[in-house]
């Protein structure tokens, strides 16, 4: 399973790149602004220069930001394709959103509500739809979010690499119970999952 690239890494790399650059830019522009306001205050610098433009500078600050913006777009797009291209051999789980809970249906026919149990180190593909208004499944730990729309099939996938519990939430406003549409992803060992998914719990 090591040959699968976890899109979490791609998303985070893009996030760090864009946010890091933004901090640098913000500090630079703010410091320059404050410096000018103090350095050229009227009591110290009473006669202003008459500068109406500088085409070289203006051209530079069109093209340099354009190149940076393009680099950001590319990193963001790479992360996005990582989130969209499902590797082969993924465990497929059907997800049905309803006001106000989530139903998960496994290939074995087993169903759970507000609780998704998956084996560690196995890619999981979620096939999502809604039985009423639009909801959206958001698992922050796996950087995954996709809308659940009645009459439309959407999907998302993730690769759980560490056993544990991760929460998910609904992120498309759906009414009074919107904030209660939360649940938990349980990442367990392969053996525990196989045993669990076959056991009949009366659904």
């Amino acid at each position, binding site marked *: 399973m090591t040959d699968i690239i976890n899109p979490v890494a791609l998303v985070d790399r893009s996030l760090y790149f864009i946010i890091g650059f933004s901090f640098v830019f913000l500090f630079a522009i703010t410091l320059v602004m404050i410096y000018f306001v103090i350095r050229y205050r009227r009591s110290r610098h009473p006669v202003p220069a008459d500068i109406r433009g500088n085409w070289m500078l203006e051209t530079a600050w069109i093209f340099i930001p354009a190149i940076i*913006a393009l680099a950001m777009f590319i990193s963001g797009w790479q992360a996005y394709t990582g989130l969209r291209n499902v590797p082969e051999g993924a465990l497929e789980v059907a997800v049905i959103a309803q006001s106000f809970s989530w139903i998960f249906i496994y290939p074995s026919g087993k169903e759970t509500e507000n609780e998704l149990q998956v084996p560690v180190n196995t890619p999981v593909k979620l096939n999502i739809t809604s039985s009423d208004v*639009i909801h959206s499944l958001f698992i922050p730990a796996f950087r995954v979010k996709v809308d659940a729309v009645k009459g439309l099939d959407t999907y998302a996938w993730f690769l759980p690499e560490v056993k544990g519990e991760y929460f998910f939430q609904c992120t498309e*406003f759906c009414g009074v119970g919107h904030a209660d549409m939360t649940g938990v992803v349980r990442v367990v060992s392969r053996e525990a999952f196989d045993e669990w998914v076959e056991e009949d719990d009366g659904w």
Partner: protein
Amino acid sequence: MESVKSFYETPSPAGFTGIWSWLITFDHKRIALMYLYAILFWFILAVLLGGVIRLELMFEGKTFLRPELYNSAFTLHGVIMIFLFIIPALPAVFGNFFLPIQIGTDDVYFPKLNLLSWYLYMAGGVVAVVSLFSDGFPDTGWTFYVPFSISTNTNVSTAVFAAFILGFSSMLTGLNFITTIHKMRAKTMGWLQLPLFTWSLYATAWVQLLATPVVTITLVLVMIERYFNVGLFDPSRGGDPILYQHLFWMYSHPAVYIMILPGMGVISEIIPVFARKSIFGYKAIVASSLAIAIAGSLVWAHHMYTSGMSDTAVFVFSLLTFVVAIPSAIKVFSWVATLYKGAIEMTPPLFLSLCFIYLFSVGGLTGLVLGAPGPNIHVHDTHFVVAHFHCTMFGGTGFAFFAALHYWWPKMFGRMYDFKKAYIAAVLVTGGFMFHYVPMFILGLQGMPRRYFDYLPQYAPGNFFAGFGALFMIAGIGLMMVNLFASLARQRTVPPDPWGGVTLEWTVPSPPPLHNFEKDPDIPDYPYDFSKIVAAGSGSRPKGA
């Protein structure tokens, strides 16, 4: 100049006095003031609703609102702020008052249509109020997403109808401004002699005129669905819920440029005046306004990366979104470069403009995170988005509105406000702003969704801190309003040009006479030539009352 009567003393049409001299006036300046009072009323109301939301969220679980009321509170906050405050604020108040003066004419091209626009605005506000007290508060969020907005039992139809009426007010104002700029400019004023605020209103007006019909039709479709249940957005009958989102954002994304462009225009006016130096790159700023208006109309689906639309659409809309970032960056560079080697006098309008540049930069840069498809998936519909658009809309347009109020207040009312209180208010609002929205950015990155009545325990500290920021902001806005309106008790002592400005509104008395100009104005070859002001010596420094 002393003998000239201001527009307050000479009603138009003549002969009406008291309230009628306002309610049936065709004078663009009186209409602007009527907009100002109505808009401030809605603004304060929506600010307080925002405070209610943050107070509820300060503590886990139910604090003092039921979830139904919480959902209504953020819906009303959004609807009022968007449709009744930010969209009309700068064009309807300062555009109406100063656009004709800046181009050297006596009124807009269609004065009666201008008054009608005001009545439509007021009617939209009244219908919005009615929607509250009929079948329960609307609870859909200001985006009215289907199928929720069609299936909910609250009074969405009336709220949507209010937005429909307000759309007409906005469209007619846009039409009026475009016509005025084309037909009413002083004879010797060419396009590249227009002040930048006027240019920004021109770019905005085209977006208002071309994009607003889309949302107007979309809102009618929602009403048709609610009353007749045709199935336009219902997939089981061949409809498509994603179609609604496309139609909605096809207007509502350009609408954010309707909101921000006039704000950028205000900042482009204020910075040269207090730096006493020509704006850096006049043509680049004009071109970037037009570029934002055009490219900004083609990026709407970046609100929909998670909606289930095709990956190709995500690619195209993301790329276009990064294109729009460039003209916005050009403007920020031009403003900062204008300060270089200026003779800078600190005043409340300049201080607010500098706060604008900082806060708008935060908003613009976090927009890059949202525009990139992969990172967007993580932060979409979280508090990160809420903080981002408040930085652009409140830190941007809101602060430009505050700056415009402080810049043009002496011209509109002939009275100066207290500087010290103005600075304290500005510091409170800006400091509160950072305290409020920085925790929200972090909450969003941690995954806290927006429109949540309650949240998981790990989000408690951020929400608690954000509540304090909100209190500082509300206190600052309160002080700012009290300080401005307290000036109205003073004598009219402001000279025509208290700041040393060179656009035409500073050549007429404060407040201006009914027809704005006593004699035909001299049109400068270049709208930001400060050489005469500099040659006249530093003169008296602008002072607060």
